């Protein structure tokens, strides 16, 4: 085959090009021709097609995501906002923290181990590229029904992949989620989050400036992995009739990534880079065009200099390859030698593949012949933008009218007791330690809190004990009932989880997992969820620092529940003050904070006992969430509470069981006057937490709640070896432990 050079493209304007196979629409292809004033070369077509895919261009979601900027709250902590590899937040004492969630959903369904592993690898490189040392990971996961045979294939592979990669990198896994629901059958959600820490002056950006500066590609050799993965894997609904569309999956090499991390951090320490970008989706196409687009000049790349794993790759394939564990840096000529020396020290292959020019074009050459000549912005930042039609689905009213509060309730204390056992042992409410014990949570020696605590917390500075906390949450059932409220509930829960450990929420990241944007009902869910999240962030004062959108999570006509996952990052000045969740001291008083209403829509109870989803999700009151957060943070700072646990799915009883089992102590509980025992235990009203208060602090604590107007109800005391809900039932801890801990191993081991 002859090389399709720019010259050749000029001479052969009418050649048929496979734009449709590459996922481009007719008008998109025409637009490329208009931009270039000729037909694109094969290499250019490859670049545009991957960069204009849904995954890279956000063409369906962009118009909605804008709100995160437009409605951003005033917040001095935000150092780098949306648009870079990850946002950066000031946590004080000269430290900055960067964090981000990303999805690797489709690849993890096809090849669970490698899909999940490379998901971790990708997000870690994003964090590294900001100039930070990665310090922790988290993994929000969704699978099909727990007893579905395919879950037995997907889940163990995903968990082994996340552990296999993260453990080998030396990143403690400090939290996440595991949710089972038939709606994720065939479309599991594998989201991964990474947190990194740096000093303010270490922040790096992805831009290529300074004519004459060198472009260095370093890390793994480039192979044939995941070619077309971006456009095909992430942007099209699976169609079983066309298995040939499934491209090779990427295989991760965590050892190589570990070397890349240490090598890159040493390069940062010696101040050797001007701009830097990781290689993820769309590989070199993305890295070169984004670096050039964000910088001041142009860029010239000699593609044949790229170190290959497979010598037969064509230039198009090299541009599209998604081989893992690679980075691209912009380096001043005088610093190149030292850069290469450090790479050699870490056994990392590095090659100068080009330089920054004072032009305006991205030009790529193959053995001296020009195969790409494009304005980089048109590839990287000025892709198509769609205003997809959206409409509230016609079934939404009926769904909301099917009120969960009307479902049959337990008729006797015995029945209530049986339902409690059934709920806390159901797959979603059961202990996930069979999964999380496969993750290293101790490595790096800075883990203050990790799963099953409300949020993960790591120490940032050994001398001052400054720390950060992160939690991730998302409830697809709530979001299905009301996507606007559902997104806010995800935000509120994550915020509450961070505050429960004593940390002050600062900012959020998010991963928006939805069905096909070409379905107006899904697009409506997406529009509502983003609007809800943007409004919520404004109300709570926590800006969105970045995130990820995963669309096309659907099989045929059936989409997953809309699943916005929200990660909140908080700061704590002294990690010694953290509040754990365990009830560990007898005699401490239990207070329920917040109001309990009759709110069972989307609840764990309605799912487990009635296999029901209908009605409205719990009402959102963000002012109340903020107040609750302030109380929890003050109580932690001033040592007024010994333990705190937020209330979410499963309600109060779930929180009591978890805190009792964690501390190995029971509780005597009194149902407050005027509340029905069932509602008291199972309602999922938002804005609540349970705290254990030492008797010596009781007055100070209740005074504070009273003065600030937060309802605080004394509901019992830490005591004995059972949960005794007086006048209702008694559940020994041993029985609870078996019920709570046996479920997942029985399903998966």
């Amino acid at each position, binding site marked *: 085959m002859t090389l399709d050079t720019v010259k050749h493209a000029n001479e052969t304007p009418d050649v048929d090009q496979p734009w449709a196979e590459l996922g481009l629409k007719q008008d998109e292809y025409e637009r490329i021709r208009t931009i270039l004033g000729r037909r694109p070369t094969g290499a250019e077509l490859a670049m545009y097609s991957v960069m204009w895919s849904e995954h890279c261009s956000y063409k369906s979601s962009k118009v909605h995501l804008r709100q995160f900027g437009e409605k951003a709250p005033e917040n001095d902590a935000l150092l780098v906002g949306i648009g870079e590899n990850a946002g950066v937040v000031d946590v004080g004492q000269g430290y900055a923290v960067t964090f981000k969630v990303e999805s690797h959903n489709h690849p993890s369904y096809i*090849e669970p181990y490698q899909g999940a592993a490379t998901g971790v690898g990708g997000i870690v490189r994003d964090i590294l590229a900001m100039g930070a040392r990665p310090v922790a990971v988290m993994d929000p996961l969704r699978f099909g029904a727990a007893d579905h045979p395919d879950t037995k294939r997907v889940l163990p592979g995903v968990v082994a992949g996340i552990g296999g990669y993260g453990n080998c990198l030396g990143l403690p896994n400090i939290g996440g989620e595991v949710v089972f629901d038939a709606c994720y059958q065939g479309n599991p959600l594998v989201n991964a989050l990474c947190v990194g820490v740096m000093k303010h002056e270490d922040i790096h950006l992805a831009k290529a400036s300074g004519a004459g500066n060198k472009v260095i590609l370093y890390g*793994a050799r480039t192979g044939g*992995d995941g070619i077309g993965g971006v456009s095909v894997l992430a942007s099209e609904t699976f169609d079983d009739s066309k298995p040939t569309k*499934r491209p090779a999956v*990427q*295989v991760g090499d965590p050892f*190589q990534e570990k070397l890349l991390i240490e090598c890159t951090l040493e390069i940062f320490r010696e101040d050797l880079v001007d701009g830097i970008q990781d290689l993820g989706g769309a590989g070199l196409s993305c890295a070169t065009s984004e670096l050039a687009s964000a910088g001041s000049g142009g860029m010239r790349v000699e593609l044949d200099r790229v170190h290959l*794993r497979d010598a037969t790759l064509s230039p198009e394939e090299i541009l599209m390859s998604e081989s893992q564990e690679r980075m691209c840096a912009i380096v001043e000529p005088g610093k190149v030698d030292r850069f290469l020396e450090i790479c050699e020290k870490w*056994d990392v292959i590095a090659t100068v593949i080009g330089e920054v020019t004072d032009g305006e074009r991205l030009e790529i050459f193959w053995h001296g012949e020009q195969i790409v000549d494009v304005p980089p912005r048109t590839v990287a930042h000025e892709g198509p933008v769609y205003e997809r039609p959206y409409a509230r689905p016609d079934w939404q009213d009926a769904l909301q009218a099917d009120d969960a509060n009307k479902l049959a309730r337990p008729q006797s204390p015995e029945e209530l007791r049986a339902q409690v056992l059934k709920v806390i042992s159901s797959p979603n409410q059961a202990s996930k330690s069979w999964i999380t014990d496969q993750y290293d949570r101790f490595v790096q020696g800075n883990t203050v809190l990790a799963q099953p605590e409300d949020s993960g917390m790591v120490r940032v500075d050994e001398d001052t004990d400054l720390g950060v906390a992160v939690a991730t949450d998302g409830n697809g059932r709530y979001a299905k009932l009301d996507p606007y409220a559902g997104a806010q509930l995800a935000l509120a829960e994550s915020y509450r989880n961070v505050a429960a450990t004593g940390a002050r929420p600062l900012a959020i990241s998010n991963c928006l997992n939805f069905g096909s944007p070409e379905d107006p009902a899904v697009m409506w869910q997406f529009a509502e969820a983003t609007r809800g999240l943007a409004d919520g962030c404004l109300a709570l004062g926590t800006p969105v620092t970045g995130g990820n959108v995963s669309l096309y999570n659907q099989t045929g006509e059936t989409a997953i529940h809309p699943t916005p996952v929200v990660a909140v990052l908080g700061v704590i000045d002294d990690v010694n003050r953290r509040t754990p969740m365990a009830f560990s001291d007898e005699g401490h008083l239990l207070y329920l904070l917040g109001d309990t209403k009759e709110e069972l829509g989307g609840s764990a109870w309605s799912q487990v006992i009635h296999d029901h989803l209908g009605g409205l999700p719990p009402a959102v009151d963000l002012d109340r969430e903020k107040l609750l957060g302030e109380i929890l943070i003050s109580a932690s700072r001033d040592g007024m509470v010994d333990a705190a646990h937020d209330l979410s799915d499963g309600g109060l009883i779930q929180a009591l069981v978890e805190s009792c089992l964690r501390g190995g102590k029971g509780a005597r509980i009194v149902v407050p006057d005027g509340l029905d025992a069932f509602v008291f235990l199972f309602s999922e009203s938002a804005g609540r937490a349970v705290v254990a208060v030492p008797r010596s602090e009781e007055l100070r604590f209740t005074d504070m709640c009273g003065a600030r107007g937060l309802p605080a109800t004394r509901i019992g005391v830490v005591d004995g070896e059972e949960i005794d809900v007086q006048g209702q039932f008694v559940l020994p801890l041993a029985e609870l432990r078996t019920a709570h801990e046996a479920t997942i191993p029985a399903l998966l081991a």
Partner: protein
Amino acid sequence: MARVVVDVMLKPEILDPQGQAVQRALPRLGFEGIADVRQGKRFELEVEGPVDDAALARIHEMAETFLANTVIEDFTVRVDS
């Protein structure tokens, strides 16, 4: 009892980090002249009853659906003599 061996190797286009790590270590240990190393799995199956065409077909199916992950791996089945 007869032994059937199933060899499972990563497809040639798939990255083999283990094989690469081994290959890179060889020169340091003083072994030169090995251009490439690929590392795979070897399964030894002890088969009850005769290893006829039907049995081999079943083992082939087992390899395809279970022992190998054909998204990233190739396999071969052979009777050990």
